[in-house]
């Protein structure tokens, strides 16, 4: 078995080449220590050779802890005797940014006795503009074999495969470029000089890009385009994923209807229907959203627009310790935190990514909507002010949404200021890649891989928690009365905790079950009040809550509690997996729980003063 490492700077077309060379034979694994995928695949034309796709980086001289991990991992991979060759991909149209990194890779390969092949990608772009580059001269200067290719058109791929075969046949002699002992500073100077001499000249290559940037970064037109694109993105998560989410639920429901009647024992029947199928449904329902959002973010990244969107949002978000790249994950979080947390992968600064993780669960996700709707319908009068212009319920909904966002930004603003020195960070130097038509296949594969990651990594945790809560709510009276279950007893036990909010044990139980998903609060509360199907029709439950004499202050306190609390096992599971730190997920759960509780108590006291 022979392995080849594929490495290159960001935006050099690496994923496209990897996809072209490996076809469907791919596996994706998480990069150890950081949230970057490493894809491996067998070469379609040479199945005995495995290609390893390394994360794109500008330099092997790291300036952040995360870059250090990537650089160390590359060096340790070169120690693997099965790794015989390294493909170093450069964007020939932008030689300056790739060449220093290329020389570093050549030096490492020389030190480790590996063969290296420099691949000059984007030859189709040069050909299109009729620009010629002295590739033979460039190869002489860097003292490494260089092949012209186009990952997009496939030009040069046959020659590349022929070269791989030739290298394999010739044995394992490493490259001799005479730079094994050359320090970085000298390499940097050489790269600068060689890029100046051989890089493509003239304005031709950047003309189209500059013209499009004049539109997309224009104060008026660019702002409008930004809102239109973000609106589409938001719509895609909410609307386009909805039919697929309904289909997932329908298929699961139909399967449950088929399977459950075949089970004889009533407890086993209830367990299969309410714990297993509900548990599976609880995480499968997120898959369409994750797929759609990953796919659309892929389009934005591949087309080059993502960098422009990050630029537009950077300044206002910087105030709160975030970066322009935090905007899309946070916007996604307004639909659902899980795809939002995945979307945060595109943030290269570890510090900013951590802060974005902190903000996402405070965005008013769609699972909060039924809870807000119930509480607002129950406690806020359905009347209007200013001659019918402002409805109090609508205003309350807006304020609750806005409150969550505000708390999210305040948290990141405060944390970023208090932890300034604890992290090394990356500067805001963002490459503006050329605008391109996205290549669909890798995007679909990436979205598929992301869904697989979610189901395999978070699925078991979500299912386990569903089963635990089901057991607590079902026994000892076999589901006859939730109030008399272990969960109900626990609710009575912790009633004093909710007393400062003016809430009785029934609300405590509903809050505990909402850990599965916030909207479960409505169904559970319905069950506690003896109302079937409260999650479908809230009106009887609203009447019951009002009739129970619960104070308005308690309702507003609950709104504050749900706006802040991280009551979502799926979010916590994926937060732990993506950040690589379960401790972070636990800390955030505890901190937001304490904040939510403290905020709710304070709100209850304040509102009580006004409402008497």
């Amino acid at each position, binding site marked *: 078995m022979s392995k080849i490492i594929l490495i290159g700077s960001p935006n050099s077309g690496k994923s496209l080449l990897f996809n072209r060379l490996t076809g469907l034979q791919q596996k994706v694994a998480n990069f150890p220590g950081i949230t970057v995928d490493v894809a491996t695949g067998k070469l379609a034309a040479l199945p005995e050779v495995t290609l390893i796709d390394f994360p794109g980086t500008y*330099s092997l001289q790291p300036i952040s802890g995360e870059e250090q991990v990537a650089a160390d991992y590359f060096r340790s991979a070169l120690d693997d005797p099965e790794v015989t060759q390294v493909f170093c991909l450069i964007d020939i149209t932008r030689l300056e940014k790739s060449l*220093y990194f290329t020389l570093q890779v050549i030096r490492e390969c020389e030190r480790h006795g590996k063969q290296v092949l420099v691949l000059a990608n984007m030859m189709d772009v040069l050909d299109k503009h009729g620009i010629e580059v002295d590739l033979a001269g460039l190869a002489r200067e860097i003292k490494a074999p260089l092949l012209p290719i186009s990952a997009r058109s496939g030009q040069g791929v046959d020659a590349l495969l022929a070269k791989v075969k030739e290298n394999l046949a010739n044995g394992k002699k490493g490259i001799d470029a005479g730079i094994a002992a050359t320090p970085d500073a000298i390499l940097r100077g050489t790269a600068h000089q060689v890029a100046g001499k051989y890089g493509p000249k003239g304005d031709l290559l950047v003309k189209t890009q500059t013209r499009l940037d004049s539109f997309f970064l224009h*104060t008026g037109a660019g702002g409008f385009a930004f809102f239109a694109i973000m609106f589409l993105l938001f719509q895609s998560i909410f609307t386009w994923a909805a039919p697929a989410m309904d289909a997932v639920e329908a298929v699961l429901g139909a399967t449950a209807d088929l399977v459950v009647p075949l089970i004889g024992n009533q407890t086993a029947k209830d367990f299969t229907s309410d714990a297993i199928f509900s548990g599976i449904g609880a995480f499968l329902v997120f898959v369409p959203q994750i797929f759609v959002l990953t796919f659309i973010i892929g389009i934005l990244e591949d087309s080059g627009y993502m960098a422009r969107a990050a630029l537009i949002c950077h300044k206002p978000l910087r105030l709160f310790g975030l970066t322009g790249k935090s905007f899309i994950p946070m916007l996604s979080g307004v639909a659902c935190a899980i795809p939002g947390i995945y979307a945060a992968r595109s943030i290269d600064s570890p510090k900013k990514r951590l802060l974005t993780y902190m903000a996402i669960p405070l965005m008013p996700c769609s699972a909060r909507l039924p809870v807000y709707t119930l509480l607002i319908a129950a406690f806020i009068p359905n009347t209007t002010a200013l001659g019918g212009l402002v409805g109090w319920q609508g205003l309350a909904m807006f304020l609750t949404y806005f409150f969550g966002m505000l708390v999210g930004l305040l948290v990141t603003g405060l944390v970023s200021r208090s932890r300034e020195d604890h992290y090394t960070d990356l500067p805001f*130097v963002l*490459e503006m890649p050329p605008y391109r038509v996205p290549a669909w296949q890798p995007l679909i594969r990436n979205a598929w891989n992301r869904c697989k990651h979610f189901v395999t990594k978070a699925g078991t945790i979500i299912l386990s928690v569903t089963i635990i809560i089901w057991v607590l709510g079902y026994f000892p009276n076999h589901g006859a009365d939730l109030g008399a279950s272990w969960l109900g007893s626990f609710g009575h036990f912790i009633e004093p905790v909710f007393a400062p909010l003016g809430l009785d044990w029934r609300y405590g139980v509903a809050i505990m079950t909402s850990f599965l998903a916030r909207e479960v609060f409505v169904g559970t509360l319905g069950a506690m009040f003896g109302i079937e199907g409260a999650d479908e029709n809230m009106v009887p439950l609203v009447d019951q809550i009002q009739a129970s004499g619960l104070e308005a202050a308690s309702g507003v306190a609950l709104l504050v509690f749900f706006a802040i609390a991280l009551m979502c096992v799926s979010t916590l599971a994926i937060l732990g997996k993506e950040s690589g730190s379960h401790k972070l997920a636990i800390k955030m759960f505890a901190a937001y729980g304490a904040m939510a509780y403290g905020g709710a108590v304070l709100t209850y006291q304040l509102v009580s003063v006004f409402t008497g």
Partner: protein
Amino acid sequence: MSTSLWSLQTGDRGQITGFDTALADNYRVRLMELGFHPGELVTCLQAPAFGAPKVFRVANTIFSLDDEVAAHIAIELVSA
């Protein structure tokens, strides 16, 4: 005239003369890796409103830099 890269407006060009000491060493190294070498010509392609990061061209590559970085890159203005 000596000024900082951040002061350039759309269409302005400058030649990098150095980095001021307030810029962290690792930032300076990264900028040089990307092509921002002393002596290099930089063109400001976009200077969006509201203090958003500006867009600069160096060699054939285009980067966006915010004021926290660009204000520490010293340049000599080059007349068009």
